[in-house]
């Protein structure tokens, strides 16, 4: 069963209060749930829908439009590895392959210990520091094999 805690209920009320129309809070609420659970389950979609007076189907139709929402559980750390032009020009492809091999997962996959999910990502606005990746909320720039080892090995 999916339930919002009373603390979350308060937070939701605050978020909804920012907008003249309740539906505007849909993306913020999806983000809220995903930050707590790592993904948004069908039960969560229903609960969000109830808060905002939207059908679960509508919630899903919006959610599925945006690539950052996950309908399935992901790893503890989500690695978004930029492969767009500025990073590509500075060797991102090779480093992405290296990272996949290091983690023994496919690009798009999750490691067997559920620690990492690895995605190739479109431009993340860190073009002057390419190659780069984002691990959860943190940007790491000017990557090398050694730096990637250091960053990923040090995560608890």
């Amino acid at each position, binding site marked *: 069963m999916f339930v919002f805690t009373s603390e979350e209920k308060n937070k939701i009320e605050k978020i909804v209060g920012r907008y003249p129309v309740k539906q505007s809070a*849909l993306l913020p609420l999806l983000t809220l749930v995903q930050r707590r659970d790592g993904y948004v389950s069908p039960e969560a979609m229903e609960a969000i829908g109830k808060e905002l007076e939207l059908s679960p189907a509508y919630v899903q139709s919006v959610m599925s439009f945006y690539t950052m929402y996950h309908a399935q559980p992901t790893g503890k750390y989500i690695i978004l590895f930029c492969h767009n032009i500025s990073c590509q020009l500075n060797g991102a492809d090779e480093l992405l392959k290296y990272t996949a091999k290091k983690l023994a997962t496919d690009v798009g996959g999750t490691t067997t210990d559920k620690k990492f999910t690895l995605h190739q990502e479109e*431009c993340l*606005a860190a*073009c002057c*520091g*390419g190659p780069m990746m984002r691990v959860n909320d943190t940007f790491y720039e000017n990557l090398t094999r050694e730096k990637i080892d250091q960053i990923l090995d040090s995560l608890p």
Partner: protein
Amino acid sequence: MQILFKNIDMKGLANIDIYEKQGGYQSLKKAFAKKPEEIIEIVKVSGLRGRGGAGFPAGLKWSFLAKDVFPRYLACNADESEPGTCKDRELLEKNPHLLIEGIVATCYACQIETAYIYFRGEFQHASDLMDKAIEEAHKKGYLGKNIMGSGLDLDLYTHLGAGAYICGEESALLNSLEGRRGEPRLKPPFPAVEGLYGKPTVINNVETLCAVPWIVNEGGEKYAAIGTEKSKGTKLVSVSGHVKKPGNYEIVLGMPVREIIFDLAGGIRDDNQLKAFIPGGSSVPMLTADKVDVGYDYESLQEAGSMLGSGALIVMDHTVNVVEVTLRLAYFYMHESCGKCTPCREGTRWMWQILGKIQTGEGVGAQVDKLLDICDNMSFKCFCPLGDAAVGPVASSIKCFRSDYDELIKKLEGDKVAT
């Protein structure tokens, strides 16, 4: 000349006390001493143009707001997603109060009481910093009720997207802000008439709004005296790719591209030969090395066959495989097409497939012509500018480097015969 990046690397600038000590929030006093329409006039005179990509004059945009229709909204576009562009992130993370100050002045000019900053979803960190800055500004009375006795009430909120390039397009941004799929809307009506929640809405890029405090402080004429005849002021340029010192640089509009690449960014890595550059983000046509003396301003770049766009200068040296780079950009547009209209949805996929075939050697002779044909069928026929953006790199790479395509195809065909 530092307008946007003044003190940008000062420690603690994101803190309101330090920002105030540098003269921060002073423009509001000046603004509130004038009538709202006078502020619009000052910005019109300044010649400030939208720094997000379209380059539309900001003051003119504000003057299009439907008369006497309230409430009105402001949506600040912090969805920075154009490949090659990373200037707004630097402003947002290092100097959030500059943006807040610009937003307050703009809302006063346009009589707006609610404003949102739409961040791309990956900017959680910048959005958290902004929330903190907004709280500080509230405490000091720069936001909230009757700001500095001006009579202006203003609430400002951050809003996070969730990964969709298309939400940088203004009407898609509004849909996303309303809790819908980020698909673009049919125009007209333009947002100034019917925008957020069907009300008149101002949408400006982060960098545009960050220029407003200086203009209010110093006057429109002074800003208009900077730059070229038609391209006024300064511009942040994100220089990336094969340069020694990639980074965001504030330039006076009109500076030759050569100076940006070779002086500011330190020249080409390993002292290689410059082969090509994309001057304004991945959506604008690439230019060959012989165009390197073109001025970096709206008109000169257009004359040279490209655009200033978002101000992302992507530099490529002679080792680059143009087909490979174009293939990656084609993948990007295919991935980001929202699927609403057929020419874009189908066209971006075909282009990516054909480029992939060329790159892997499955393509034969007429493939390049087929690409050009698809470009023709997409240009100006898509619902929103994403379709035209997707054509930019493909058509221009063929125009500039057709021989690279032909040689690659010939070589791969030769390889096939040899095996």
